[in-house]
């Protein structure tokens, strides 16, 4: 088979992919194995003493209310980002899919949030909601006659704000893909539906949405990865996982335990657990959801 593509060069294909494989092994697989190994030990900060503890790190995590809280927070956070984010993005994309004046401007205005860094997004939302000097608490205290909107003492509020910031940031990305997906819906189907007397709501759910399913399933997957892994910067800037552990998503707890508390054993165990969970969810998503997606033509 090789001779077809590389006539006369038996080993060339292997040599060509060696650099990529080497990078993957050195930077991904190697550290991963090392991390799993570390998760079975406890060690001092500077490595002066290491003790094998078997599964103790894992058992401690699963019986720790803090870790379970972290898992619940992550789940709520991801659910918000995915469900609210995709719904709003789809609605906006639907609106942007019209031929109205200035649609180019609107598109850019709604999409550019994706281009800013998580840090900036975090700073913007943190300043907006700063308890004593922020705009929103100020407005709310004026409207409600003195109620202080202080996310520092209200965990649910803090989680909401962080989730809103993360969703806002990802809106641009979701909108682009939905818009592209919408533009691929053939007009003939929609016209035919109109002739048959379908109202916009029905034609959306029966025609547009099913035809969008490849896009939707792709975005579901990407948003899930985003909500789990890529919001670290946002949380670090805005709340540092606080108040209490109200916004301490799994990845953030890992960071705190590993890099601030210098507890490498627990952090390694946590990273393996996250890896395992994500792998399972990814497999489920890619198999089941993608299989159900309808591809036109």
């Amino acid at each position: 088979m090789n001779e077809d593509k590389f006539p006369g060069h038996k080993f060339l294909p292997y040599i060509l992919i060696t650099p990529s494989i080497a990078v993957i092994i050195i930077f991904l697989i190697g550290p991963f194995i090392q991390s799993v190994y570390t998760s079975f030990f406890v060690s001092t900060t500077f490595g002066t003493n290491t003790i094998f503890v078997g599964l103790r790190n894992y058992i401690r995590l699963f019986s720790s209310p803090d870790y379970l809280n972290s898992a619940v927070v992550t789940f709520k956070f991801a659910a918000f980002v995915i469900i609210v984010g995709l719904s709003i993005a789809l609605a906006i994309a639907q609106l942007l899919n019209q031929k109205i004046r200035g649609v180019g401007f609107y598109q850019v205005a709604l999409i550019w949030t994706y281009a800013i860094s998580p840090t900036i997004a975090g700073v913007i939302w943190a300043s907006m909601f700063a308890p004593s000097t922020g705009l929103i608490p100020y407005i709310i205290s004026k409207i409600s006659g003195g109620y202080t909107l202080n996310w520092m003492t209200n965990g649910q509020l803090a989680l909401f704000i962080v989730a809103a910031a993360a969703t806002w940031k990802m809106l641009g990305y979701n909108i682009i893909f939905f818009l592209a997906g919408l533009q691929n819906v053939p007009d003939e189907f929609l016209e035919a539906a109109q002739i048959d007397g379908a109202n916009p709501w029905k034609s959306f759910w029966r025609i547009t949405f099913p035809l969008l399913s490849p896009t939707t399933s792709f975005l579901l997957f990407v948003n899930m990865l985003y909500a789990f892994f890529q919001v670290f910067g946002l949380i670090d800037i805005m709340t540092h996982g606080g108040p209490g552990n109200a916004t301490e998503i799994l990845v953030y707890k890992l960071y705190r335990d590993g890099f601030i508390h210098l507890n490498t054993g627990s952090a390694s165990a946590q990273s393996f657990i996250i890896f395992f969970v994500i792998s399972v969810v990814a497999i489920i998503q890619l198999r089941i959801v993608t299989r159900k997606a309808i591809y036109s033509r």
Partner: protein
Amino acid sequence: MNLRKSFLIVLVLALCLLLSVGTALAQPVTITFWHAMSGSRLGVLESIIEGFNATHPEFEVKPLFTGSYAETLTKYVAAYPSKTGPNIVQSYEVGTQTMIDSNAITPVYEIPGMLGETWDWAQYVIPITNYYSVDGNLWSMPFNSSTAMLYYNKDLFEAAGLDPNKPPTTWKEMEEYGEKFLASGVVDHVYSTGWPDWIFEQVLAIHDHLYADNDNGRSGLATKVVFNDDFGQMVFETWTRLHDKGIYIFGGAEYSANTAFNSGQIAMLIQSTSSLAGIIKASEFKVGTSFYPRFEGYPVGNSIIGGGSLWVTKGQSEEELRAVWEFLKYLGQKDIAIQWHKGTGYFPVSGAALKTLLDEGWFSEDQAYLTAFLQILSGKRDTAASTGVRLGPFVAMREDLVSGLEKALAGQLSPKDALNEAAEKMNLKLKDYLELHGK
């Protein structure tokens, strides 16, 4: 190749060799210094280092800002196995036990002997050196030490009908003044604090109350915390009550409460003395300072040190060590210590510096700077409870305490339960630390 060409090549190579040897001979001994001084403190530190480099041409100190205290320590830990770390590193005070147990540093009290010199350690401020000493020997060089004090807005005091020269002395007065403030409508909330975990430690220490056993971890590794008794509960209950009345607003960890104070949103702030220069600059009102409040009728201890110190990495060559030692001595000199104090508000480490500051009238210009000194120098210094806490997993434990405080303030748990829950988590961490470092 012909002979002439090869001769030229050899000549050029020889010249290069000579040049490189020549420059090597003229190179000063360079040492690297990782620190966590950000903001305005960075500028002051860099100008001090430039001064050292200029007056000591045979040495060159290369400073590197490596992020927050936690990030600096993490980087140091990561660099340790590959021996690519700095010669000197600044660690926060909560990292002291970790550094002592690290096997990565040379205690500073050994350095003069290693270089054939002697040094008088008593010239430094005693409460500060006490903190960083083990069995009476100094392990790290004090550099940026602070304590906590009460900042207050004199203008707001007047506006609320209170005497701007009579800030509250006790927590009872904090409550009374707080109620007057709220009644006057001048502010929505009356006070906040920075570093709530540290302020809790301060309240214990000012009343000579131990935080953990084994003399606050100073005579041996601590095995459990001891603050969750009646006294600790009272502190938590007081703070919760003040919060529920709207007097105390929780400011978050670290320096976050300063913004509210600087912008006149709150009238009082219990915060590190190192914030003084920044607060005076950022505020547009008359800033007053005083000791932070105490509970009437309880024993007297002392306020405790915060900030950081400088640690010397083990295994350096003799010339590097000499450069390090000269730099550390330089930092402790009276004039440099005064320069550092004036630029940041941290204590000068040299005892002689205080006298000079008094003589030149530094405190008559602005009494606010004197409060910090009086706070740290006016209490006991011979009890473990007043010297400060030293714990291995201190960073993680402090978070458990803040978590507990937040739960109490949010009403999720009663102050007593919140305190006990925090104590339980903290004791588990101490147990783990003992397991790894147990003797």
